[in-house]
């Protein structure tokens, strides 16, 4: 899962990035509106966290620009004002949810999960595939009564595949959901993760789609 964080405050941005990354998501952090637009042009994101008060280009403008381009990425707004006006404006401009500063990191993550669920058309908070239960909130995988420990990257790959079960997920998409800009990427690292997944979860039927990526049947 790849998240674009648009926040100009150094310490808040750093905290949010660290906090959201702890939930096994990949976070790209930009500090102003212009950089946010560049990032959206370059990369496909699953979620965006947008602060409204930004240098160079206000958050609301970035949001309008995003929706004008037809980008439907779920956007969580961070507002510093407690007035409804800003929220109404933001929601009307295409935001999907908002939290007011100061907020709880747990809540932000929960809202991001909820936004993502809605975006992939999944009503249940727990994703089921055969006998495998994937709980994004606790980042736990249960097979029957047993917990299966997965690394954050393995978890992210599994979640993405499960959400798109039956459809092939491109390699690039899978890579971008586990590696941010700052990460160094090995050459056959995706294959290694998939290999581990297949070993840890024997009931998993991950098919390799030649020249494209992987598919969960």
């Amino acid at each position: 899962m790849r998240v674009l964080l648009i926040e100009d405050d150094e310490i808040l941005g750093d905290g949010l990035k660290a906090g959201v990354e702890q939930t096994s998501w990949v976070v790209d952090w930009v500090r102003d509106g212009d950089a946010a637009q560049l990032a959206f042009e370059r990369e496909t994101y699953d979620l965006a966290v947008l602060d409204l008060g930004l240098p160079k280009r206000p958050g609301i403008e970035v949001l309008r620009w995003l929706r004008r381009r037809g980008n439907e990425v779920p956007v969580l707004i961070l507002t510093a004002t407690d007035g409804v006006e800003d929220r109404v404006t933001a929601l009307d401009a295409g935001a999907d949810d908002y939290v007011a500063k100061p907020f709880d990191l747990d809540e932000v993550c929960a809202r991001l999960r909820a936004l993502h669920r809605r975006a992939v058309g999944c009503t249940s908070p727990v994703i089921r595939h055969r006998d495998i239960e994937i709980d994004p909130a606790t980042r736990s995988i249960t097979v029957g009564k047993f917990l299966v420990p997965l690394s954050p990257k393995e978890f992210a790959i599994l979640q993405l595949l499960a959400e798109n079960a039956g459809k092939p997920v491109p390699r690039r998409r899978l890579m971008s959901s586990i590696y941010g800009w700052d990460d160094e990427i090995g050459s056959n690292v995706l294959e290694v993760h998939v290999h581990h997944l297949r070993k840890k979860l024997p009931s998993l039927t991950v098919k390799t789609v030649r020249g494209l990526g992987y598919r969960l049947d």
Partner: protein
Amino acid sequence: MSLRRRLVLLFFGGTLLLWVPINYFLYRGALAEVDDLWDSHLAQSARILLALATASAERGELEQLQDMLPRLVPAYLAPADDLHRPFRADESHHKHAFVFQLHKRDGSFRLHSASAPDEPLANGVPGFSYRVIDGTAWRVFGIADTKNALILYAGEDHALRKDLAWHLVEHLVFPSLLAIPPLLLLIWLAVAKGLKPLARLVQEVKQRDPNDLHRLSSDLVPVEVEPLVGALNALFVRLERTLESERNFTGNAAHELRTPLAALRVQAQVAQWATSDEQRQRALRQTIAGVDQASRLVDQLLTLARLDSRQTTLASAPVNLNEVARRIAADLEPLARQHRVSVQVSGDTETVTLGDETCLGILVRNLVDNAVRYAGSGGAVTLAVRRNGLFNLVTVRDTGPGIAEGEHSEMFRRFRRGKDTVSSGSGLGLSIVRRIAELHGGGVKLANQARGGLCCEVWLPTFAREAISAARPLSDRTDSVRNAPASTPQTTPSF
């Protein structure tokens, strides 16, 4: 004193002021009329008496006149009882009311009415005259019959006439005196009615919610009050603007505080969740940095709030800016080291400004602090204090990215940050600098240097003992900012 009472008193006083002379002239007019009337009456009576006397004298029966006269004209001898009764009941005057003295020129005959004085009423003067005898003023008409050598003086107590005139006037004055209370009431009511639009206006303003700053309608107010309504409306507009900026300021202040708070909370939670010790240490370091950032913001907010409210009266003592600059530069040395920025101070020694040392310190601190934060790692900040004629110039240059020309004035707006900035400033530093400079009768301007970096220049009046401006309290000098030389920057070297 209420407008109503003042108006009533003015109207009433004015009416009385006119009323008194009107009645005086009325009295004088009545007196003149009475004089005319009674003079002719007196003259006629005298002529009749003299005609009687002449007739008697020609018949040689002058002596008998004494017996005859009372019978013929009782009114003259029991004088004026009926004539004067309507005017005065005082009997003591009646015997003086009408008198006559009939003399023969040789003194052989002398006939006086009962109440006539012994002394002659006139000295052979024909026509009208006055004479005071024994405290009684007489109006006298003398007439002579030269053929029979007879002289007749008809006299009348003059006081009686005054009484009569007074009586006449009284009949006019008393009704008008009676009219005074109703007049007062009418004036009172009329004034009340006249002031009604004003009262309505007062009511409208009084009943207003403190936040209701809508214009007052000038449709229903009288023309005279329109300027007042206009002035009130103008005040409302100004108030609204002030409130608006205050609301903005507090709103912005809250906004600016929420971000560091959010940062602190998030970092604390990251530390809580951290899976590695390294991660936890990092989050805690960030938390501390966040606390520092928040306290810096709170300090600046408080400074600005105090400067705005002018609750703290600025001290007014000679301050050597060069010393202040050196002290602040030393204070900020750790910050500069942290940012890997070198700070250099240079300048003249004779740079004295009249003002508040603490505030001027805050000014320099904000300038240098900003410069250090934006200079960039390995950069340099130069702080120069120089005297230039009437002004001391405090110039701070950095090696940072500078600010786009068009945005220089924007930078002084509160909570406004430069578009190219990545540093987490509060956006208040330059507002504080400008406010302090203005309070000291100076100003501030920004410019980009040719070789890159920002140059911020503050000018403050030099202190001269003979300067008149030194005598003025600092707070009054804010206005003089407009008069501060816009040309000052000309003296700065080209960046």
